[in-house]
């Protein structure tokens, strides 16, 4: 088993196919979307592949060490240029193929008009496994 991080972006990922901001959906479409996501997580809990899922606020701050005795630097007027993570789900699956398959399914969550959003999700493996020695 290996852990993968599925990242959902506010900004930084290519635009989804069904690109309508959420406040333009109908309340029923929002409910359907939420239900899809939570059903998806429930299903992974049953298969033992779910680890964690969290949502993040849209605003974040870049911070950098600025030398001894000085306060850290935070980003200023260029916040709009950075990539922003909206949330994540961590899964623990048998293979990279399975991780990609699940991310594909999650990306098909319904959006405006009940059609899949086709949102781009980033799939990143965790660097946790020690390589297996096979001689």
């Amino acid at each position, binding site marked *: 088993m290996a852990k993968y991080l599925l990242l959902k972006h506010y900004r930084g990922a290519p635009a989804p196919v069904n690109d309508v901001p959420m406040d*333009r*959906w109908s309340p029923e*479409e*929002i409910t359907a979307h939420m*239900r899809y996501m939570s059903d998806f997580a429930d299903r992974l809990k049953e298969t033992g592949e779910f680890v964690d899922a969290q949502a993040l606020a849209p605003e974040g701050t870049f911070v950098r060490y600025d030398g001894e005795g000085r306060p850290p630097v935070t980003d200023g007027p260029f916040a709009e240029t950075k990539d922003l993570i909206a949330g994540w789900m961590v899964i623990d699956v048998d293979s990279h193929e399975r991780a990609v398959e699940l991310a594909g399914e999650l990306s098909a969550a319904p959006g405006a008009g009940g059609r899949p959003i086709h949102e781009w999700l980033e799939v990143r493996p965790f660097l946790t496994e020690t390589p297996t020695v096979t001689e």
Partner: protein
Amino acid sequence: MDEVLLRSLTPSVLGVLCRRGADFAAAEDAVQDALVEALRVWPADPPRDPKGWLVTVAWRRFLDATRSDAARRRREDRAEEEPAPGPVPAADDTLRLYFLCAHPSLSPSSAVALTLRAVGGLTTRQIARAYLVPEATMAQRISRAKRTVAGVRLDRPGDVATVLRVLYLVFNEGYSGDVDLAAEAVRLTRQLAGAIDHPEVAGLLALMLLHHARRAARTTADGRLVPLAEQDRTRWDTALIAEGIGILQAALARDRLGEFQAQAAIAALNADAPTAEETDWPQIVEWYDELWRLTGSPVVRLNRAVAVGEADGPRAGLAALAELDSALPRYAAVAAYLHERDGALETAARLYAEAAGRASNLAERDHLTRRAARLNARLRR
């Protein structure tokens, strides 16, 4: 074996040891040992005075530990005395513990964790689960807090206001897993109200009961927020509301108004209305004025603008809002609501979407997004 009894005795036993001069961390260890001993011995041989028994055993453990610790130093040899078993006065010592746990040298989150541990008698695991952090992290946080207050001598009475703030923090943390922090905060505040006679303690207890009474109606089964006006009032706990109002009235009658009593008065006016339309908004506005006088908090003025909007119409509410700083948290949400009631749907939809982007939790963000979506759908038709 009565675990509820054990849990309720823990803080006062700990309080006795602290009053006798035991350092907080050592006292806590000794009390834990005594609890383990009680679990072993009591089923076969129940004590006549459970608290006296616990105090005796814990004090003996504490002396043993101190003695073995200091065995090399002869002067410790005199520490032989043992307490006589028997009834021990309770309130005073528990109170001391409340003050210690809310000591100003602790950060709010440490004070909360320590209060749940020492006064509430929760296990580290339970507290960790409630805060969704690993048990080891919470254990560290608690032992750091204990080290911080280790040298504190409580020779002067502590500040009740700080204790109340900590308890209100616990109440507002919500709950997850096996510990309901809101219920726990109510229990601790009840205990405190039994220990000291203070109108603001009564005010906080009333406020918690009135909020707690509406809890079942506040969210749907799938976790969606239900605004006050749309809540199913038959799901409110009328017994809790009546209790809260009774406690509040007794506190108000003493004419020492404080912010918790004022907040409870507002909650009581909301809880007392048979329907949203019958709410006494003019009186709520007056209470917000009192609250503003007591606290000077800009958040109070924001809430007051909502109440003004209900009492005198959305235009009056927007006028009240115009005097405030638009950088206040939830400013956009309040503005959206007032514009919606005023019929400016497009402005309202834009503001709801903006407020959703600034929301501090998921339930609130989803609620605001839905509001924006509902208005946008209406506008398209």
